[in-house]
């Protein structure tokens, strides 16, 4: 439904996002996770057509957002980080205005509005002036606005930020209920929020893609294993089995085999248990066999970094959750 390929956006000399590629399937809820300033908002603004990119393409429902912006926009409902509300209008007048902007025909307006009001739970404030309603309701008006016209794609930028714990839970429920019927992209800097709501998660850090996986896959990658690369000078066929039989090694994959100065070399990526450091054992084993280790380096550090930032926020969030349920 959404295809983002090789998207790059720079601000002057500063890098916004770099070479971002991912896709979202119809009906899926995709989480867009990353620390503040990672490029989440920039990416969403490009998808919705608010910003342009330096290079790369974005397709929404088959329409290129740069070539065919009007067709693409007709299929997108967008909730920016700050809900775009006119404070002096009533909720009713505001939603009516958005209907007109989106070009929803007169005959369908009442039904569309009723549907969005129902889904976002706005009935209690429908006739009130926006500046007089609570933060949570304002956020709901923002979501209702995005839902108007039943767009295929919903882009929600940090929909729960600044809400109180009860409102956060309600909004999450609401977003979850939107999956299936709509394709949803939801950004957040809170890990548990994303794992609760989303089927798949894109993690970006410093404008780059750090990982795409299911929430379960991510936590497995995070907790269950550690990865490093090792280059060993030794026979191509014999080195990998010897490495994989070491205690604590989960899996290995041969990245490259070649000859340097006529001697065979193997580059392996080794995935191990977190609790067990196999590097020492690997060293002695290889020394015993007479195959020198030429290079050994950890990988996936950036992902760990991202998680470190995210998990510090997670703890804060957990406290809030506990307070809410108490």
């Amino acid at each position: 439904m959404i295809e983002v390929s090789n998207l790059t956006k720079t601000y002057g000399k500063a890098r916004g996002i770099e070479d971002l590629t991912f896709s979202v399937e119809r009906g899926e809820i995709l989480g867009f996770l990353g620390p503040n300033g990672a490029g989440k908002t920039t990416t969403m603004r490009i998808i919705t057509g608010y910003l342009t990119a330096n290079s790369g393409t974005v397709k929404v429902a088959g329409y290129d957002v740069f070539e065919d912006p009007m067709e693409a926009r007709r299929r997108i409902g967008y909730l920016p980080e700050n809900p775009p509300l006119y404070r002096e209008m009533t909720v009713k007048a505001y939603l009516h205005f958005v209907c007109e902007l989106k070009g929803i025909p007169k005959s369908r307006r009442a039904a569309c509005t009723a549907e969005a009001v129902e889904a976002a739970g706005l009935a209690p404030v429908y006739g009130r002036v926006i500046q007089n309603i609570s933060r949570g309701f304002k956020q709901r008006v923002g979501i209702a606005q995005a839902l108007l016209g039943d767009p295929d794609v919903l882009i929600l930028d940090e929909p729960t930020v600044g809400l109180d714990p009860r409102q956060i839970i309600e909004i999450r429920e609401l977003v979850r209920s939107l999956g299936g019927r709509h394709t949803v992209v939801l950004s957040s800097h809170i890990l548990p929020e994303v794992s609760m709501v989303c089927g798949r998660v894109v993690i970006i850090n410093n404008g780059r893609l750090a990982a795409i996986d299911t929430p379960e896959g991510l936590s497995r990658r995070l907790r269950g294993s550690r990865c490093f690369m090792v280059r060993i000078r030794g026979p191509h066929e014999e080195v990998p089995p010897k490495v994989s039989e070491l205690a604590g090694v989960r899996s290995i994959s041969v990245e490259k085999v070649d000859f340097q100065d006529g001697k065979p070399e193997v580059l392996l990526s080794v995935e191990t248990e977190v609790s067990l450091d196999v590097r020492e054992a690997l060293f002695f084993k290889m020394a015993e066999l007479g195959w020198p280790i030429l290079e050994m380096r950890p990988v996936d550090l950036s992902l760990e970094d991202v998680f470190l930032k995210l998990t510090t926020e997670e703890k804060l969030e957990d406290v809030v959750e506990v307070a809410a349920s108490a």
Partner: protein
Amino acid sequence: MLKTWSIFKREVASYFLSPIAYVMGAVFLLLSGYFFSIILLATHSASMQGVFGNMAVTFIFVAPVLTMRLIAEERKLGTDELLMTAPVSITSIVVGKYLASVFTYLVFLAVTLFYPAILMFYGSPDMGPIFSGYLGMFLFGAACLAAGTFASALTENQMVAGVVGFGVLLLFWILGWVSAAVTGPVGDAISLLSILKHFDDFQKGIIDLSHTLFYVSFIFVFLFLAVRVIDSRRWSA
């Protein structure tokens, strides 16, 4: 077109829900009423000739305040994200907003129709110059508002938009004085750009196509620039 109309309606409602239209309307009408009374008392002639000129100068001060909010505030509040991501062209947005300011101005002008009504009641004014004067006021005011709309597109700070808009209008006003300092064709060419110079003939009862074209192109250029400025922002920020 339909969307321009929606934006226009919302903007007009917003003008008359906020104090801006009332305050600026009051200021404009107070000053023009003052000019009308003083000039009438001084000349004892049933004509609006001097009044239009003074109303036009007054509007140079009023226009930037009317328009400064138009686009700057959308950016400040983030509502531009709604407009710019809706299936609406930037031109529709700018034109809709601009027309709302013109409509507000027309409401002010409509109130001033009171003056010729007074003249008609107590005397027999020559209606020709009054008609052409109102046409001139309309074109002149619409041009001022276009420059103000452009200024509002430049920044998210209303105050800055107001000051820049006023600066632009002041510049186009005083360009008319250049011909006194710079003689010859250069001075003449520069003074042709003056927004007030083109207004003179309208007050005298002359509807000249070249003056009309001047105002229409002035409006077109500034609205075009406003659209370009907004569009270019999608590339930078």
